[in-house]
């Protein structure tokens, strides 16, 4: 028993020493613990993100209710899908009368970015094989952002766990409150709550628009999404708009290929 309680401390201690040693060898003499970050500071960062984003589950609950989902359906999405953009996308597509598979396809494509987060995290956190199926559920934008921002593996693990736990609890609680509150609110459009969904999408999109190709892809996607809305069945225009990404990549590949050819 005593062995069990003592064992977790040992690798942590080793990790700390190696982290400090790495800093020394990197040319930072006499500054012990430069790459260190107090656990409490990591927890504070994680709680900040977890609370801010977790509270916006309220907007999701209200939006889902407005789209015609009942309370169990709305809560099931937050409990089991637990990746905000996909949830909003699915609810929006269902509200527009899309068929369930088209709606799910849009949500799935939005969720594919989580696979790439998982790739980064599996190396960073060194998640044990047995824990991976559990940890996977929390692999989302916010937990990845907090974990990647930490200087050590210990800090990254704390950041991932605290952000994941806070966000999961709050997101589900506020989803429930939003779904229940929507009935009391009545006409949601009068309160402007139909603007919550697009505002969340815009907030997720904004930090992704860094390069010219990002903006070109976004511009083409907007044109396709709006232009095809009146002609194609609900949910399909978004999937067609997603083709802006491979199209721009293909065009870029062609241009660089041509330039290389001209150099020769």
């Amino acid at each position, binding site marked *: 028993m005593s062995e069990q309680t003592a064992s977790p401390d040992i690798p942590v201690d080793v990790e700390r020493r190696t982290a400090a040693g790495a800093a020394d060898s990197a040319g930072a003499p006499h500054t012990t613990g430069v790459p260190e970050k107090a656990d409490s500071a990591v927890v504070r960062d994680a709680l900040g993100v977890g609370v801010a984003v977790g509270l916006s589950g309220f907007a999701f609950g209200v939006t889902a209710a407005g789209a015609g*989902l009942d309370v169990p359906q709305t809560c099931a999405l937050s409990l089991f899908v637990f990746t905000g953009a996909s949830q909003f996308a699915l609810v929006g597509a269902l509200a527009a009368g899309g068929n*369930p598979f088209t709606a799910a396809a849009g949500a799935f494509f939005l969720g594919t970015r989580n696979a790439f987060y998982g790739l980064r995290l599996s190396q960073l956190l060194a998640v044990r094989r047995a824990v991976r199926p559990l940890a996977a559920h929390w*692999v989302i934008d916010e937990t990845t952002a907090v974990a990647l921002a930490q200087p050590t593996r210990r800090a990254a693990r704390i950041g991932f766990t605290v952000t994941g736990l806070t966000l999961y609890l709050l997101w589900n609680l506020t989803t429930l409150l939003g779904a229940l509150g929507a009935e009391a609110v009545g006409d949601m459009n009068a309160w402007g709550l139909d603007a919550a969904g*697009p505002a969340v999408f815009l907030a997720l999109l904004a930090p992704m628009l860094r390069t010219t190709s990002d903006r070109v892809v976004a511009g083409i996607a907007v044109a396709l999404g709006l232009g095809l809305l009146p002609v194609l069945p609900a949910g399909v225009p*978004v999937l067609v708009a997603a083709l802006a990404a491979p199209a721009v990549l293909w065009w870029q590949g062609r241009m660089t290929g041509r330039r290389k050819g001209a150099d020769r």
Partner: protein
Amino acid sequence: MNAWIAIGVTTAACYLVKLAGLLVPAGTLERPLVRRLAALLPVALLAALTAQQTFGAGRVLVLDARAAGLAAAAVALVLRAPLLVVVAAAVAVTAAARALGG
């Protein structure tokens, strides 16, 4: 029933794609083209969704109070406001614009 089918399919698909990232050996998806596509795909989807949910009403395009709300969200984003403030700004401005007959 349709909603439950959509929820079930989305749950399975979104979970498996999360798990795949943790399980596949590092390097499998690290090819530059795949990474670029993975980064651009959400850009395209989010841009299209933002536009549709701002200007779409069923299968017609309209310019209504939501556009003002989205503009407010954009201003909040430029001012580096947290997510909750961005959403609150969009909701409040949309409601105000509607109350004023927008």
